[in-house]
């Protein structure tokens, strides 16, 4: 059994519920990340890592790793706990397991890329739990399974997650900071009924302007085209 297979089989959460039971709650909100389809040894499943939160007390965590993306069909495992502390503990435990995986020198490069992305996002989620009262929560994208798809909400904006673009996306993710969530929130409002669909990002070189918007596109399942305006070339 490969290290990753071993990791995936660890039932480290104590309270399992079906996805349907979590979805039937009218109060839960979530932040979630859907990563690309997995080439090579992990087959064709779609990575997803989701943290469902209904602050301040009721919390559900869903982590699908290496499973086909079928949230709306209820095939994902759900792990529900009653307060924030166990969630933090479980995510920290899962994070430690992922970090141990990264210490393996023979880890396939594509798997390393995926696990690296998961670690990046898990640390971001741990910080979200810690800073729930801060503005970063406002910028978290919240995913709601529907009968046929998944809707993404943030502020006053609701978009449909484009499941058709979840394959072949690059999985690299930028470290999430307060600026990330502020940018997500503002961009989502620009995409909503009150916005005109145009966002300007400005700041010094190396502050993650372009990558932040590319990451947002990944979180929304959007195709992203980058046009170098100076040269008029597509990339």
């Amino acid at each position: 059994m490969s290290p990753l297979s071993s990791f995936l089989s660890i039932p480290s959460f104590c309270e399992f519920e079906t996805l349907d039971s979590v979805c039937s709650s009218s109060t839960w909100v979530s932040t979630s990340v859907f990563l690309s389809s997995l080439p090579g040894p992990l087959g064709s499943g779609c990575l997803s890592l989701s943290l469902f939160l209904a602050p301040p007390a009721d919390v559900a965590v869903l982590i699908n790793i290496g499973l086909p993306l079928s949230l709306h069909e209820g095939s994902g495992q759900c792990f529900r706990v009653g307060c924030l502390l166990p969630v933090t503990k479980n995510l920290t435990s899962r994070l430690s397991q992922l970090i141990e995986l990264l210490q393996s020198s023979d880890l396939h490069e594509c798997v390393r890329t995926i696990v690296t992305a998961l670690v990046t996002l898990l640390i971001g989620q741990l910080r979200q739990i810690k800073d729930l009262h801060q503005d970063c929560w406002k910028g978290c994208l919240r995913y709601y399974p529907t009968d046929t798809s998944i809707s993404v909400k943030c502020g006053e904006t609701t978009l449909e997650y484009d499941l058709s673009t979840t394959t072949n996306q690059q999985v690299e993710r930028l470290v999430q900071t307060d600026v990330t969530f502020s940018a997500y929130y503002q961009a989502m409002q620009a995409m909503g009924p009150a916005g005109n669909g145009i966002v300007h990002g400005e700041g010094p070189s190396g502050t993650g302007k372009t990558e932040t918007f590319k990451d947002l596109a990944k979180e929304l399942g959007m195709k992203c085209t980058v046009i170098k305006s100076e040269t008029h070339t597509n990339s």
Partner: protein
Amino acid sequence: MVIYDEFSGSQEQLKEFVTKAEASVKAKEITVCVYTFDNTQANIMHLPGSAVIKFTKPDLERIAEVMAATEGFSNWATLAVETAKDVTDVKILKKSFVDMGSAARASGKWS
């Protein structure tokens, strides 16, 4: 999403770009213009009614935490503080952790 990266033309050129972008994307999608300008220049470029997101210097300590973890160090939080304290450039920071991670993987010795 269409990202116009490092736009540096006139306001008229920007309008032209955005018009093309608007025509090429679905209504629910978004057009992003990214500038490495100072605020005065950028303000001149902004189209009325559009959102302006200001990016500031990266939080190096936060980035160091994640980099230490993604390179496989169990003591990522502590290592991040130690490594980031004398570094001001995110690229140098990244190289430091990548080098440390490569060495640790090769030797099997993790701190």
